[in-house]
């Protein structure tokens, strides 16, 4: 099932897919950051990934990653789409227009990791106060008391 899924996405976006791995049953595809929005539209409209499950921001120590985990209530299957962003300009298109539920999840990634989402309708901090300095889930973050 996952191989089929990978083939379909590769065929549709031959230049966008950078890597594809199987994470214990979940297909994780890494795509070029500028292709995120078209790929997301495609997987929602053509592959029925209608449910925005989770958005995870990861600081690998070298770069920032954002992983969109999706679920299909039609096919009962999941899919993760990863984009890798450089430290000095962590910016990627928001997928709020594809899944409204991505809104708060992206705000959280912005809040805690400092990734900026282009065309996000309301990119404010969500868990921390507006006056907070820095992004605590970055590995370089130094706590102040």
């Amino acid at each position, binding site marked *: 099932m996952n191989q089929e899924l990978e083939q379909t996405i590769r065929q549709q976006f031959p230049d966008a897919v950078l890597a594809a791995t199987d*994470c*214990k049953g*979940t297909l*994780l595809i890494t795509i070029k950051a500028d292709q995120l929005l078209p790929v997301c539209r495609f997987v*929602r*409209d053509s592959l029925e990934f*209608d*449910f*925005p*499950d*989770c958005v*995870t*921001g*990861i*600081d690998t120590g070298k770069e920032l990653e954002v*992983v969109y*985990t999706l*679920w299909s*209530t039609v096919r*009962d299957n*999941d899919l*993760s789409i990863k984009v890798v962003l450089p430290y000095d300009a962590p910016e990627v298109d928001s997928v709020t*227009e594809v*899944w*409204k*539920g991505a*809104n*708060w*999840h992206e705000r959280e990634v912005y809040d*805690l990791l400092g990734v900026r989402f282009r065309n996000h309708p309301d990119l404010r*901090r*969500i*868990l*921390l*106060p507006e006056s907070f300095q820095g992004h*605590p*889930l970055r590995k370089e973050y130094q706590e102040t008391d």
Partner: protein
Amino acid sequence: MDQPSNQALHRHPTPEQEHGLKTEELLLNMGPQHPSTHGVLRLILHIEGEVVLDADPDIGYLHRGMEKLAERRTYAQVLPLTDRNDYLAAMSNNQVYCQAVEKLAGIEVPERAHFIRVVVNELGRIASHLVWLGTFALDLGAMSVFLYCFREREVLLSLFEEICGARMTYSYIRVGGVPWDVPDGWADRVRQFLDYLLPRLDENDALLTGNEVFLSRTQGVGVLDPRLAINYGVSGPSLRGSGPQFDVRRDDPYAVYDRLDFDIPYQTTGDCLGRYLVRVEEMRQSARIVRQALDLMPEGPIMAKMPRVFRPPAGEVYTRVESPRGLLGVYLVSDGGTNPFRLKWRAPSFANLQVLPEIVRGWKIADVVAILGSIDIVLGDIDR
């Protein structure tokens, strides 16, 4: 595909639309200290007269930085943190965390442990739904149901105390299995409790659904469109009250749920009453699951062999369970060290609360209390 919306539904007219009275939009803070926000949630309401034009939930008052704390602790030390996220359903939180670590490290959990996990998870669901039922009824003015629900829950908490020593923050499900087997006679006491509980559920149900006031406060109020709900990532009873029958226990089965026989309750009305009916029926289904799991539970070990210093291989994994509030997920990244490299908590209440502004628009302030109660949020789960 066009974006789904909640536009076409019934709304209260504003004073201007109804009587031609000129009013001004007013900002009203509901919370963070307000009994019906069920914790420290601040809702910024835009109102005109009594009618809500928009709502802006402000969260984070209970943020403890659990995901950051987890990066400084070993895999075993993280477990007590998970109890404190959704403190009304700590078993589900233990379950999803252990499941993620086990999936990442490829640990085989003994079968008996899986059955015990299912039993405590479902009992946890009943305990959580009882709190919800009591507080929801209280929000709508039904004091007695609140007292009855907490009386029933008390028995459950004693059963939990017997099995693991804790009443709410269990840390009972451990990576690899469970630390202690069920005490002698515990299974029978659970069966006795279920025999006691089910007739009382019907009684409570009759107190509410047989009450005209309760019905008029919930029927047709806060209708959530099913397509909109899915697009927002709403899950659990709040989703199933609108029609979709997505339940992780059946659609992405974990532990031994695929070997048990149970129904997924759902309603198509999408209103507060629909969400109420789903949760009440879920308690009956949980009782059914617990009985089966107790009957089918095999003898055998309850803990997998675990190394003294535990280092799962590098990699990343996502796993999910059905908590009482919906889809609870964990994204876990390991770099091969003794601590999680990154632990992301996908909280069901977080995604469910997001849809609130869509379903309170056009309703009156008193309805906001009913609608918010019907979504069943836990702020510890949202803020982490």
